[in-house]
């Protein structure tokens, strides 16, 4: 029994001795050191300060795993296996970045065999190829074999510099990307009221509706109230609208698709413009004219919230119609029930009237005995004499009517002018 217990203890000791190099790793939170070569205080410091700061600031886990081999995987695949296996990343989307370093012992020190980056969740979309290249360029300086000397102290220093650079570059990239996103978000205040004609809740409601529809359709819906369009471009309200649209970077996508309604209060001018392939396709000349009809009555009564609400709502409908391949145009207006009744009335009554006229004319020829009402046949030649023929000017009346839209606006389609804009302007 004593021999058995002795043999068991020796076996366990042997096992512990044999396995101990394999289990030699340290987990510092955001750093996993599979080599157990690095100074624990240093790793802890890097994990708890640089990496944690970045991770917390952007809610994107920024971590480092140091391994000695990839267990037969390519390093990229191995990094992904780790990322998934250990459920890296924050939140439901597993938002995070993993830098996996493959190190090997070299003399008393270490050498770097390579590294891999793995992006998860939002980090994958935030780090486009350009940003990933930037990050790799920074890491290449430190994590190449030539940078490592085989002296542990020197290698530990280069690793520290490399990980610090990693945290800094990630910080910079995320900072710039999210700042830009914030800026864009700030810019896409879809409605701007320089004169305070809309209260804050109305403005928020309009912005929310416009943002929702703009995102949904990939075409910005914007509105703006200014005191005088000449402050932006004195050439005209249309020119001012196009300038504001361009200067503010309105529009979605590569072609800056958007629609913009500018109200200039000094002379009560308005301009409704569209831009981009989608914007111009959805907002045809006829469509813009009808859209203007929707909001002009409200603006005329100084009900700006109702006018802009109508503008946003109808714009959304126009965009839906365009996406369905049937943009609102001259012929589209004939799809309503009212129009159907009108067409039905035309189909029924026009033929009836036409038939009645023809039949009445033919029937009239059946009646020839008609009482006389004139006596022109018995007027004596040249007997008409005027003793007074007096034409006196009385007065003048004048009616001023706005020029109706030119015919081509009713011919369908969109007339696109300079800068890729189409527009419809007038007064309210």
């Amino acid at each position, binding site marked *: 029994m004593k021999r058995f217990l002795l043999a068991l203890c020796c076996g366990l000791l042997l096992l512990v001795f044999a396995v101990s190099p394999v289990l030699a790793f340290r987990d510092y939170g955001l750093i996993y050191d599979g080599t157990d070569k690095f100074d624990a205080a240093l790793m802890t410091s890097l994990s708890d300060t640089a990496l944690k700061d970045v991770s917390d600031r952007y809610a994107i886990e920024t971590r480092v795993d140091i391994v000695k081999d990839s267990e037969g995987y390519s390093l990229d695949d191995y990094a992904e296996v780790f990322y998934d296996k250990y459920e890296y990343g924050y939140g439901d989307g597993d938002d995070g970045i993993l830098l996996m370093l493959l190190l090997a012992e070299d003399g008393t020190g270490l050498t770097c065999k390579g590294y891999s980056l793995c992006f998860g969740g939002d980090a994958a979309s935030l780090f486009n190829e350009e940003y990933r290249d930037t990050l790799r360029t920074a890491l290449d300086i430190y994590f190449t074999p030539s940078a490592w000397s085989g002296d542990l102290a020197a290698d530990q220093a280069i690793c520290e510099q490399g990980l610090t650079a990693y945290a800094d570059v990630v910080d910079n990239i995320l900072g710039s990307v999210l700042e830009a996103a914030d800026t864009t978000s700030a810019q896409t205040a879809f409605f701007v009221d320089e004169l305070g004609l809309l209260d804050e809740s109305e403005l928020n409601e309009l912005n929310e509706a416009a943002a929702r529809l703009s995102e949904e359709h990939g075409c910005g819906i914007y509105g703006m109230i200014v005191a005088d369009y000449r402050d932006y471009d004195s050439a005209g309200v249309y020119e001012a609208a196009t300038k504001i649209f361009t200067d503010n970077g309105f529009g979605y996508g590569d072609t800056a698709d958007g629609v913009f309604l500018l109200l200039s209060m000094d002379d009560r001018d308005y301009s409704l413009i569209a831009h981009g392939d989608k914007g111009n396709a959805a907002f045809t000349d006829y469509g813009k004219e009808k859209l203007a009809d929707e909001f002009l009555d409200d603006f005329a009564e100084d009900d700006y919230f109702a006018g802009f609400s109508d503008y946003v709502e109808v714009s959304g409908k126009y965009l839906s119609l365009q996406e369905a391949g049937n943009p609102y145009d001259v012929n589209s207006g004939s799809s309503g029930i009212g129009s159907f009744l009108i*067409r*039905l009335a*035309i*189909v*029924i009554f*026009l*033929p*009836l009237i*036409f*038939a*009645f006229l*023809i*039949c009445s004319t*033919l*029937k009239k*020829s*059946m*009646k*020839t*005995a*008609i*009482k*006389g*009402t*004139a*006596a*022109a*046949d*018995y*007027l*004596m030649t040249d*007997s*008409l*004499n*005027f*003793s*007074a*023929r*007096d*034409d*006196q*000017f*009385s*007065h*003048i*009346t*004048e*009616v*001023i*009517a*706005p*020029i109706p839209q030119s015919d081509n606006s009713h011919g369908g389609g969109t007339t696109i002018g300079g800068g890729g804009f189409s527009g419809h302007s007038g007064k309210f």
Partner: protein
Amino acid sequence: MTDQVTNYKCPACTGPLRFAEKSGKLECDYCGSTFEVGEIEAMMAEAEAKAAAAKEKADAEEVAAAATAEDLKKEGWDFTSLEDNWGEDGKKMKIYSCPSCGAELICDENTAATSCPYCGNPTIVPGQFSGTLRPDYVIPFKVDKNQAVAALKNHYKGKFFLPRSFTDQNHLEEIQGIYVPFWLFDGTVSADVLFEATRTFSVTDKKNIVTTTEHYNVHRVGSMDFNGIPADASSKMPDEMMDAIEPFDYSEIKPFSTAYMPGFLADKYDVDVEQCAVRADARAKNTAFNMIREDAAAGYQSCTPVSQRVTMDRAEPKYAMLPVWLLTTKWRDQVYLFAMNGQTGKFIGDLPVDTKKYWLTFAAIALPLMAVLALFLM
């Protein structure tokens, strides 16, 4: 009691004379002799004297007949059931004795020319054309009966809604050449009318269409003369028919003579001049106003009367006998009356409408059109 009437007899064979439309002379249908109207008029005095004698004789016979009836009554014959009172109708009837055959002609009180139903001779009632009843003028017939019949057939042509059976089944019941009594009104119409006229023009600038309307007060005072506005003076003739066959060509009007009457029917007037003058005045004033308005409206886009005063200064009306062919047809127990101007040949008359054909045509036009419109609009 019979009254006197006159036949125009051929001096050569004593056959009845008839006015021929084409030659404008009196012709004898028996021996073919023709006579100028003037010649025959000379015979009229003698004929009228004979007619007066015949009238006296007829009156005496009538007295004798009355005495005979009285004698018979005394002898016990009962004539109480034979009513000699014709009532109101009797007042409108006149009895004449045909100079040719002696038959009694019972005519309307206004009848001035007719023909004897027994011997067929044209008969004139000179008393209807004497004194204040004597017409001033007559326009002789120029178109004859055959032309009237041809005109009737022509009238049916091109009438899309005329029932087919109307042309197939209807029969010409009667065709009569009638001298219809007309009052002819001369006069001067004076009109004083104030119009409000406008002249409009538009100027287009970049943004607006400016429509300027100039307003004018247009005053016209004028007069014009009318000659012979006809108004038929026979209550038996429908006014609309007599109006519709106008105009008459007064260049061919003649002083009245009964010599134009033989062969035609004629009535004396029974609508007085004042009644007819109202219609003639209205027509003249209407024409005058239209002419004044036409002059005032020249150069303006609109011309609206504001005030008007139109008066007619009538000259003495003339009494004329104007020639009219009246044709009567019957179809499905309904009488259709047509009239033709006996001078110009203008033919008028209302025709029946085939209701079935009307609605079929209506549907044939409307339904395909509906289908085509539905194809394009729905």
